[in-house]
């Protein structure tokens, strides 16, 4: 249905070291997932601050920030590099932060920009997809990820 090609934009500051040395197995991609809960805290001076904590427990309605840190720790560039995060069922997707991503609202079969996606609503009618319909978020990199490059991808969700 939606074959989006080349729409992804590199968001990370990729160190532009091309000219990788001899082609070795790029078996050293690392991907670290972190989840933070975002809370607005009012300090003793009455000013509010947004705090991020890594929780072990959350409540329905809590706002979560998902951070994915990737790094090419290998010796060669990684071509066709992409990062996919399936949304835990208990999390309603809200937005990605600072970059363009592709979304799926059907379990990863079709991908596109969110306004272009539709879901089947009651009585079998199609409606435009909402953020909380998102089942997967994916970032696709146009350029190979050079050896030594790293970056961070972020999205937000709310505990249903």
């Amino acid at each position, binding site marked *: 249905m939606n074959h989006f090609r080349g729409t992804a934009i590199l968001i990370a500051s990729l160190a532009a070291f091309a000219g990788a040395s001899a*082609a*070795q*197995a*790029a*078996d050293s*991609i*690392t*991907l*670290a*997932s*972190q*989840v933070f809960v*975002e809370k607005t*805290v009012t300090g003793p001076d009455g000013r509010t601050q*947004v*705090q*991020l*904590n890594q*929780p*072990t*427990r*959350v*409540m*329905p309605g809590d706002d979560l920030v*998902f951070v*994915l840190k*990737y790094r090419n720790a290998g010796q*060669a*560039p*990684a*071509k*066709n*590099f*992409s*990062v*996919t*995060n*399936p949304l*835990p069922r*208990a*999390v*309603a997707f*809200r*937005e*990605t*932060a*600072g*970059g*363009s991503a592709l979304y799926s609202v059907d379990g990863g079969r079709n991908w596109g*920009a*969110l*306004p272009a996606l539709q879901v089947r609503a009651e009585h079998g009618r199609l409606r435009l997809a*909402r*953020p*909380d319909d998102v089942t997967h978020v994916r970032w696709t990199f146009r350029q190979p*990820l050079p050896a030594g490059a790293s970056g961070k991808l972020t999205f*937000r969700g*709310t*505990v*249903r």
Partner: protein
Amino acid sequence: MGMKIQGIARTTLVAVAFGITANAAQAAPTVAGTTISNTAEATYTDPGGNPQRTPSNTVDILVDELLDVTVVSADPGDMPAPPGSTNQVLSFTLTNTGNGSEAFRLTPNSTVGGDQFDPTTTSIVIDNGNGVYDPGIDVVYTPGSNDPVLAPEASVKIFILSTIPGVAADGARGAVTLTAAAVTGTGAPGTNFPGQGQGGGDAVVGSSGADSVATGAYVVQNAKVALVKSAIVLDPFGGSDSVPGSIITYSLVATITGTGTLTNLAIGDAVPAGSTYQAGSITLQGSGLSDATDADAGEFSAAAVAVRLGTLTGGNTRTVTFKVRIN
């Protein structure tokens, strides 16, 4: 520990640029004890042209139990009740608005201010699921013994049964409140009960404070009847003297007042000594009634006239007439 996040404003702008709108109303909350498990995956092509995939670590987060509850009156308005009546029913709907299975303690209070009388609450009854109070079928509530346990989003009807004081005036209002409180605990929103949540997490008081109160009320509906008797005499000579042979037409006017209803109202009047009932003379609202003890409302028997007026609400009047002849 806590770190400030930067660039919130920028993020918001990005969201707008991509046309992402706020979430629609959420469905049922995630059940307490659910583990939110997040794993991402990187895919790429290695220098040998082989597709590769690298999973991230998995982050597991437990969903705590949110303690929240609502109680609302399920009555269409103040419930009419006669003075001195028993087992008068007020209905409430108790809903677990938290995300865990939770027991709720119920407490009635019939001595609230702002009303005209205090009903006497005799029992609290838990509905069997059909939404209607069924005497002898729905279970009587005993605090601490059968506190209703509700799944997330589940509701149950609660009935309060009261006796209305006999002295309560017509139109007087008597309120009763029902409070439901999470058995795990109540308090200011955010109050934490470590390890007491469903599924092993904490139980945390939600925005309701984990308790809720609703008010129902009775309004007394009473009715009175006043009976006025009058007589018109017609003597055999066309005058109005009470002499042997005179016909007396008695009128009995029943006037019902008040907001309530009188049931099985009947008027009876003995034929005076020294007079003879005139057969077939009973009327109700101007229409004749038979003397026989039969299906119609009137009868003459045992030297007395009786008319059954049935069930009448305040504001009605009924006029009965009958005739006798002076012996």
